[in-house]
C-alpha cells in the first residue's frame, strides 16, 4: 500500500513535468530539454516570492505561478522564435544550451545552499495516514494538482476556441497560419503553460524535499515517461508517468536503490526498440531532423 502511494506521488511529479514536454512538442515539434532547469527556476521563483511576500503564502504561490508563466513566454520570445526556421536539431541544442545557461545563472543568483521554501511560506509538511500508508501533505498536493492541471488542460484543448487552435497549429502549422491563427502566439502560450506546470512541479518538490541544484535530474528522468506515453499525447504522458514511476519504485524497493537514476532510461530504450512513437503517440515519420 505504501508502495502504491509512493508510486502515485512520483507519477504525479513526472506527469506534471511531462505535460510540459508534451505541450511544447505537440505544438511546435521541438523537444525542450531545458525543462529540468525551467522546473528549478519555478522552484527558485517560489523561494524568491516566499521571502518577498512572507506572511502571505497564497499570494506568494500565485505570484510564483504567474512568474513561471511569464518566464516561459519570455523564453519563447527571447530565443525559441528565432529557431523556428532552423532544423529541429538546432532547436533542441538551443534548448540544451538554454538549460546550461539557466543552471549557471541560477547558481550565480541564488547560491548553492539548499533552501526550504516551505518554511519561508510558513507552512509545515504534515504527514497524513491513508489506510496503512503515510503520505505527506505536499505529496497529496502533488496528486491533486496533477489531476487539476490535466483536467484543466483537457478542457482547454477540447472545449475552448484557443485550445482547438492550439491543436490545429500543432497538426498543420501552415494551414493554421492560413486560417489566421498567429503561430507565434500559440507557441508562446505553449511555452508559458509548459513552464507553469514544470515550475509547479518544481515548487512542490522543493516544498517536499528542499530546493537544491540536483532537482534538475528529476526533469531529465521525467523525459522517458513522456516518450513512453508518446510525445504528443497528454493521456500518454499520464500513463507513461505511471509506468515509469511504478517500475522505479518497485525496483528500488525490491532490488537496488541505486537503480533509480537508470530505470527510466532502460524503459525508454525498450520502448524505442519496440514502439518508438510511444503508447499513445501518433505514428509519425521518425525523422524530424
Amino acid at each position, binding site marked *: 500500500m505504501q508502495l502504491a502511494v509512493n508510486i502515485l506521488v512520483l507519477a504525479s511529479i513526472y506527469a506534471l513535468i511531462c505535460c510540459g514536454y508534451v505541450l511544447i512538442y505537440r505544438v511546435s515539434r521541438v523537444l525542450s530539454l531545458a525543462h529540468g532547469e525551467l522546473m528549478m527556476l519555478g522552484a527558485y521563483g517560489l523561494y524568491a516570492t516566499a521571502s518577498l511576500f512572507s506572511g502571505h503564502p497564497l499570494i506568494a504561490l500565485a505570484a510564483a505561478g504567474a512568474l513561471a508563466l511569464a518566464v516561459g513566454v519570455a523564453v519563447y520570445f527571447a530565443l525559441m522564435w528565432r529557431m523556428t*526556421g532552423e532544423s529541429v536539431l538546432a532547436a533542441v541544442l538551443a534548448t540544451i544550451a538554454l538549460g546550461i545557461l539557466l543552471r549557471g545563472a541560477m547558481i550565480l543568483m541564488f547560491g548553492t545552499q539548499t533552501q526550504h521554501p516551505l518554511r519561508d511560506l510558513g507552512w509545515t509538511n504534515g504527514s497524513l495516514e491513508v489506510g496503512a500508508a503515510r503520505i505527506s501533505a505536499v505529496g497529496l498536493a502533488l496528486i491533486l494538482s496533477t489531476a487539476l492541471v490535466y483536467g484543466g488542460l483537457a478542457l482547454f484543448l477540447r472545449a475552448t*476556441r484557443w485550445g*482547438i*487552435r492550439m*491543436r*490545429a497549429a500543432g*497538426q*498543420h502549422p*501552415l*494551414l*493554421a*497560419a*492560413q*486560417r*489566421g*491563427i*498567429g*503561430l507565434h502566439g500559440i507557441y508562446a502560450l505553449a511555452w508559458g503553460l509548459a513552464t507553469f506546470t514544470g515550475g509547479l512541479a518544481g515548487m512542490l518538490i522543493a516544498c517536499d524535499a528542499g530546493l537544491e541544484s540536483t532537482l534538475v535530474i528529476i526533469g531529465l528522468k521525467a523525459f522517458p515517461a513522456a516518450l513512453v506515453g508518446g510525445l504528443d499525447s497528454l493521456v500518454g504522458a499520464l500513463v507513461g508517468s505511471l509506468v515509469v514511476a511504478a517500475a522505479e519504485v518497485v525496483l528500488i524497493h525490491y532490488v537496488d536503490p541505486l537503480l533509480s537514476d537508470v530505470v527510466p532510461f532502460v524503459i525508454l530504450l525498450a520502448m524505442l526498440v519496440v514502439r518508438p512513437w510511444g503508447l499513445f503517440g*501518433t505514428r509519425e515519420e521518425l525523422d524530424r531532423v
Partner: protein
Amino acid sequence: MILLKVEKLEVVYHRVITAVQGISLEVPQGAIVTLIGNNGAGKTTTLRALSGFLGLDDARVTEGAIVYRGERIENRAPHRIARLGVALVPERSKVFESLSVEENLLAVVPRRATKFDRELVYQFFPALVPLRRRAAGYLSGGERQMLAIGAALACSPELLLIDELSQGLSPVLVQELMERLKTIRAESGVYSSGRAECAGGARRRRLRLRDGERPHRARRHARAPARASGHPGVLSRNRRRRPRKAAQLPRREAVPQEPALVWLSSCSSPFRFPSAA
C-alpha cells in the same frame, strides 16, 4: 475597383531557382480569375506568394509587387495576410485531420470586425451537417474539399484563392461543387470555379502561365470575340518561343451589387474551352 494587382512578380526558391518571373495580373472586385498551366508552370507558387506562404520553403519574392487594396503585401507573414482578407484553400493538407468538422470551423480566426456565422457553411454545404462530429481525416475527398472551402469562407475573406479545386474529385462532384459555389457567390458574393470549362457564368478571366512567365498586359476592357483556335488557356512546357495568344474572353456586364469575394483558381488539366462563355 481593383482588389488585387500583381506586377512583374518574381519568386526565387533557395536563392537560386527562379520559379516565376514577370507575372502580372489584376483582379477586380467580383471577378473570377483562373490561372491555368501545366505542372511546373508556377501556379501554386503564385498562389502561395499571394497568400504569404513562401518563407517556409526558403522562397522569397525578389522582384515586383503584390498590391492588395492598395497595400503591398508581398513577403508578409501569412496570418497577417489572412487577416487582411485573403484566404487560401491549398492543394494538399487542406483540413486539420484530427479535429472534427465543427472544430475545424471553430479553429478559424475570422477577420477583425466581421462576423461569419458558421451555420452559413452548413447551409452552403448541407452534406456536412451529419458529419459535424466526425474527424476531418475520415471525410471523403469531396467532403474534405467542402470543409476546406467552408473553413476558408469562415475567415470572411474578400479574396478566396483555391488551388486545384477539382483535383481528385469526380466530374459529378465537381459539377455539384460548382453549383454550390455559384449559389454562395450569388448569395454572399462568392464565386469560384475549378476546371476552366466550369468557369461559366458571369465574369471570368483566364490567365495563362507559361513556364512561370506571364507578360505584363494592359487591362482588357474591350469585348473581343473568343478565339476558337488552339488552346487559349493551355500551357506547354516547351521553351520554344511561341507567339503568345491572348485569352480574349467575352465579358458580361458588371453585376450591380459588388460581390464580396473574388477568386483565383488554378487548374492543370488541359482541354478545350467552349468558344462561348
